[in-house]
């Protein structure tokens, strides 16, 4: 074989070293050990340590229930479910905030669902307190939690219930104008008199 001959593409592909996914190494702390233990059991999730006593997981929405059931062995309490509306990306981000009483570690478990037709399984069977947080997320963002029997008006009035006011495309001003009409004269259209 002529040494000056360039190797063919096929040979290149054959000889190429398999590219290993570079995962950030987990520190040798109690947080790192806990993340490693969970990731080994659930390889579909990504895990990282943010700082002391804060860890983070990213889980696909289809397997969120499975993952949380696994996590509930270490994390006894579900502190809250925060929803963030990423309007430009067309997605809702749900952050399940977990706290481990035995280890003293807070975990963010993130998952993303499309904005239209946002559906997730309920985690009421793991932590019954999820009922309240799911009702809240359903009312303010319109996310449907399959299996939660109490989704419906909770805090808002019925006329507001269908609007999902914490979505980013909900315009507070136009809503107020339609409700109060001409009586609403406290808003200055020109904004010249506004401090902020």
């Amino acid at each position, binding site marked *: 074989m002529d040494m000056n001959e360039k190797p063919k593409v096929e040979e290149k592909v054959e000889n190429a070293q398999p590219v290993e996914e570079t995962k950030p190494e987990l520190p040798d702390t109690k947080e790192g050990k806990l993340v490693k233990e969970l990731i080994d059991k659930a390889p579909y999730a990504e895990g990282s340590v943010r700082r002391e006593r804060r860890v983070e997981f990213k889980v696909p929405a289809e397997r969120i229930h499975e993952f949380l059931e696994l996590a509930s062995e270490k994390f006894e309490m579900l*502190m809250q479910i925060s929803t963030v509306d990423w309007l430009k990306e067309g997605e809702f981000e749900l952050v399940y905030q977990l706290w481990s009483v035995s280890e003293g570690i807070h975990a963010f478990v993130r998952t993303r669902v499309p904005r239209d037709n946002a559906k997730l399984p309920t985690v009421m069977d793991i932590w019954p307190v999820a009922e*309240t947080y799911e009702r809240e997320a359903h009312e303010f963002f319109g996310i449907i939690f399959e299996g939660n029997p109490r989704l419906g008006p909770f805090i808002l009035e019925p006329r507001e219930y269908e609007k999902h006011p914490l979505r980013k495309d909900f315009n507070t001003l136009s809503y107020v104008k339609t409700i109060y009409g001409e009586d609403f004269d406290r808003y200055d259209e020109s904004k010249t008199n506004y401090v*902020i």
Partner: protein
Amino acid sequence: MANLEVPKELREEAKQHDMYLHPIDKDTYELFFGPQHMATENFSIILKVDGNRIERAIVNPGFLHRGFEKLAEQRPYFTNIALILRICVPESDVPENIYSMAVDEIVGWEVPERAQWIRTVVLEMARMSAWMFWIMGFGNEIGLYTAGQWAAAYRERFMRLYEELTGGRVYHIYTVPGGVRRDIPGDKWLRQLRDTVEYIKGKLKDFDEILFDNYITFERTEGVGVMDRKFALKHAVTGPNLRAVGVPYDVRKDDPYYLYPELEFEVPVLKEGDSLARTLVRRYEMEQDLYILEQLLDMGPPSGPYMVKDARLKALPRFKPPKGDAYAHVESTKGDFGAYVVSDGTHKPYRAHFRGPSQSHGVTVLEELLKGARIADVPVILKTLDNCPPDIDR
């Protein structure tokens, strides 16, 4: 009970005349408890009552909803302080602090030592004045009004100190991202605080005699609204309510912030899980809080600035933190109070979500505990859980 079902023939006859007779169950009725009831504080519970016993309770919040989270997305970072501190009125410093802590973490600010000392003192003062507020409510619920009136008067001493420190009595707008808004007024203020701590410490004995060691309190609270350890953990009950079922979880110990790692204090734990245990845990915590305040005063405020030095602080309304998110929580008298703040790099928070402790123990837990209780126990259970309705409505 007599069979009160309407006969079929009679019902059909009535139907022809446009009348619908429904079977009436004479002993069961619906009772709307609140939102005007003193014990519920702008909160309503729909009770299905059989005689004197509650069969089912449905929590009906929403009378307070003020849309803080939506408003917070439409205002600059520093302006939000004046808004979110209104989440829980008796201890308004807690929402200020968690929001500031979360923003500090996003920006990456290390709060100066002096500011940390002031923030710790302010939080402990908030806890003491909230305990006084709680005694006021609890004393009234079980009919011991004197204790409540005393507590209201003692709370006034803390209010006066707050007024001198911050300019406000109830709403302080004092803790801001990066430190505190202004320095402590001087040594006179510290002396006054020490006097107040000493004074309240002496008065705790009076409270013991009139309230905590009282036959009426024991009669009304023992064995009422019992929960067990597993139930409490599954429902994410925190604070004194969790410590009353035997779990020694305290944010100040388990996720320490500010100067708490340097302070000595105990986390009181009882096992019974009934209203009496919750009451007594609160009584022991008052002692610990006074002890913490004494230690802080002995330590004295460290010298140095009370605010971080950062050029970005000069143009406050346009202050922009980098992209990111953070969760911060502190131990309030109601439990674990948390804030989750998301920044997208603009001058307004992209999302601010608050975890009120009452969100967990004020909805599902309350509904469970009220099952089988007497009507007269409703205020007692509500007050010993220390439910703060704005936590739920926000």
